[in-house]
């Protein structure tokens, strides 16, 4: 391993240099991480506003604020921006970039320039997608054929943008895999790696293996529209179900690209605030890989009602249950870590506990949907919408907020206002449940997803859901204002405010450009809480 002497200039904090060029030309993984964080947060807000408008339209039956086409456009933008611009790059690109080299004791990722290229590709993809809004698509984020071939809206630009984003995702995953393999500090063995690294590694494998299939699928969809090839068009001998097979072959693993990094965050936050070593380290580490592998075998559970043989449906239903096992292993190990811990309810911990609670609901309702008989009834209803949001907001977004409040002091060298952050957490938690719990009932009563209108008997539940969305929105607004204000007005953060044992907390906040003055020699794992050191928590 290298131990280069470094030039004097790189001991300064990484945030020191000012000016836009010093950012967009920077190959520093920490700056790239922050740029992703800012970008994905921006699209989280924009796509969130679209969601608020969707909910507002559904406040009462009949037309409330927009017509049906605009409604379709709104939920398409909400879905595709949330999925492709926020949650897929998400925690992996933002916190992954910032943290991976710090956690394994490296100075940067394996290919810093490639890393910057990934970010530029991300930007290029977003610009293309924003241009598509001149004639915004109305297909939903799944681009199902044959409608996506027939609609007059700009499906080509939107899917091309997503194709470019896929490149960014692949290159980021590639970079992370090589980084974890080749740049670990001396003594940082695989079984000493922080669990966030294990989860980032599993995510990167998924990005690498699944994204090319999405890429070719979208290329074929574009060729279908531009050249008139007929792979997905029954009139030309093609098969629209083939599109669904291709699409979900990517998009089911993509669900785990979205959730596994959040699981990694939870595995980091829980032991720190329970002051206990993580329980079942290896089980958690390897279950990430298990989830990644099984996730390639279950895609057809999205298509039980699209037409497939009963044998195929039964097999896919059974395989889907299998994914629940490694997922449950994680949950039980987190609970065992909490058991008899001296739990400190700081904001990151509140979000982490919310994750465990809400994600469990999301995961279990997923088992209902994976069950063949139940799915035939619940398919394409609000039950699916509620399930998906319990996993994506209850899971990933809670993990994202936990990460944001946990590593904020390290990233920006400032502390946020803890009391305000807790108020925001309370509103987010309550607002989320008020918004989405009624949707489980709506779904069971038969309310289909993606409809701009509904019969009067669904009015009350829709009304409650919309009011919930306002509470949720208010909570996120307060959270954002708190974090933004603290950038300038916050107290200076200590190097290790939460007494974590992980490497990134053993260096200054914010870290110097070169991360470590000397590459550390690692002698133990990072979860030795409550034993000899750091008893004060």
């Amino acid at each position, binding site marked *: *391993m*290298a131990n*280069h002497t470094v030039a004097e200039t790189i001991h300064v904090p990484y945030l020191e240099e000012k000016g836009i060029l010093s950012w967009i030309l920077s190959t520093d993984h920490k700056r790239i991480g922050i740029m992703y964080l800012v970008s994905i947060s921006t699209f989280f807000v924009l796509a969130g506003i679209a969601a608020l408008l969707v909910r507002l339209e559904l406040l009462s039956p009949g037309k409330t604020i927009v017509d049906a086409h605009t409604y379709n456009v709104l939920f398409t933008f909400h879905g595709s921006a949330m999925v492709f611009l926020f949650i897929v790059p998400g925690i992996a690109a933002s916190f992954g970039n910032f943290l991976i080299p710090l956690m394994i004791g*490296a*100075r*940067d990722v*394996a*290919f*810093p320039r*490639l890393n910057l290229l990934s970010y530029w590709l991300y930007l290029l993809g977003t610009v293309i997608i924003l241009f598509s809004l001149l004639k915004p698509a109305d297909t939903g984020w799944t681009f199902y054929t044959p409608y996506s071939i027939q609609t007059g809206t700009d499906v080509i630009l939107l899917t091309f943008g997503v194709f470019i984003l896929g490149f960014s995702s*692949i290159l980021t995953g*590639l*970079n992370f*895999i*090589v*980084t974890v*393999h*080749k*740049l670990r500090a001396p003594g940082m063995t695989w079984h000493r790696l922080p669990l966030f690294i294990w989860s980032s590694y599993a995510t990167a494998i998924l990005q*690498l*293996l699944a*994204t*090319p*299939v999405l*890429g*070719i*699928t979208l*290329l*074929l969809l574009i*060729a279908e529209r531009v*050249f*008139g*090839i*007929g*792979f997905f068009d029954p009139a*030309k*001998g*093609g*098969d629209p179900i*083939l599109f669904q097979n*291709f699409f979900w072959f990517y998009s089911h693993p993509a669900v785990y690209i979205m959730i596994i990094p959040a699981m990694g965050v939870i595995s980091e936050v829980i032991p720190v605030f329970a002051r206990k070593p993580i329980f079942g380290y290896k089980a958690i580490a390897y279950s990430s890989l298990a989830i990644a592998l099984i996730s390639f075998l279950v895609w057809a559970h999205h298509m039980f009602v699209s037409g497939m043989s009963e044998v195929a449906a039964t097999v896919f239903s059974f395989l889907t249950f299998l994914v629940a096992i490694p997922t449950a292993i994680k949950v039980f190990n987190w609970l065992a870590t909490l058991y008899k811990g001296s739990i400190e309810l700081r904001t990151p911990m509140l979000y982490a506990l919310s994750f465990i609670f809400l994600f469990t609901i999301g995961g279990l309702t997923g088992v209902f949907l994976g069950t063949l008989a139940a799915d035939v009834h619940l398919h394409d209803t609000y039950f699916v919408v509620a399930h998906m949001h319990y996993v994506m907001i209850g899971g990933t977004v809670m993990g994202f907020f936990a990460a944001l409040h946990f590593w904020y002091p390290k990233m920006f060298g400032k502390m946020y206002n803890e009391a305000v952050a807790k108020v925001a957490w309370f509103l987010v938690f309550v607002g989320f449940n008020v918004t989405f719990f009624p949707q489980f009932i709506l779904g069971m009563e038969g309310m289909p997803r993606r409809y701009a209108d509904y019969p009067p008997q669904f009015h009350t539940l829709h009304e409650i859901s919309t009011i919930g969305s306002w509470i949720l929105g208010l909570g996120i607004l307060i959270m954002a204002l708190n974090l933004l204000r603290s950038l300038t007005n916050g107290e200076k953060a200590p190097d290790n405010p939460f007494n974590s044992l992980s490497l990134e907390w053993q260096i200054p906040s914010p870290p110097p450009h070169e991360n470590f003055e000397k590459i550390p020699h690692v002698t133990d794992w990072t979860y030795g809480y409550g034993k000899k050191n750091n008893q004060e928590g």
Partner: protein
Amino acid sequence: MEEIGIDVHAHHHVDPVVEYKASKLGMWLFLATELLLFGGLFAAYAIFRAKYPEMFHEEHKELDRTIGAINTVVLICSSLTMALGVASIQRGKKKLLSLFLLLTILFGIVFGINKYFEYGHKFEHHIYPSTSIFFALYFMMTGLHMLHVLAGVLVLTALLILSLKGKFSENYYTPIELGGLYWHLVDLIWIYLFPLLYLIS
């Protein structure tokens, strides 16, 4: 460790040996994603060929086996010159490297020219991607492959310029090796495409 390409002069944030190994691992991972990208098309090919065996049998006769065979030979030759290029620089023969890179690029261009005439011929006979599922597969598979040949030629040209500037030596040739790996993959994919499309029986 003594035999691998190390740039002792460039400034790295990691040890050059580690960087060399990292680059190769990265390239192999990238090649895997490329295979998966084509994998989608191979899957579509398998599905539709099982569904429409007669269409595949009848329509493949429209493809020009001679040009296809010539292009196969051209690409195999280019892989050979590429491998010779890598072998040359490993032995420190800088001029030979430039020569072999140039030959590889020329083979790539010949492949492209052949494809240009082949496509043109198809259009003259009013055969387009929209003509049938088979021709859709033909144009998508060979078209995507052609884009990869084009990208490869551009990369090799950049490497040739660097080589002429004397950037590579027996101590540092990582980019040449990586470019070579990529070029071999492009070649390999064609080796599969040619029988699948041109030689159905």
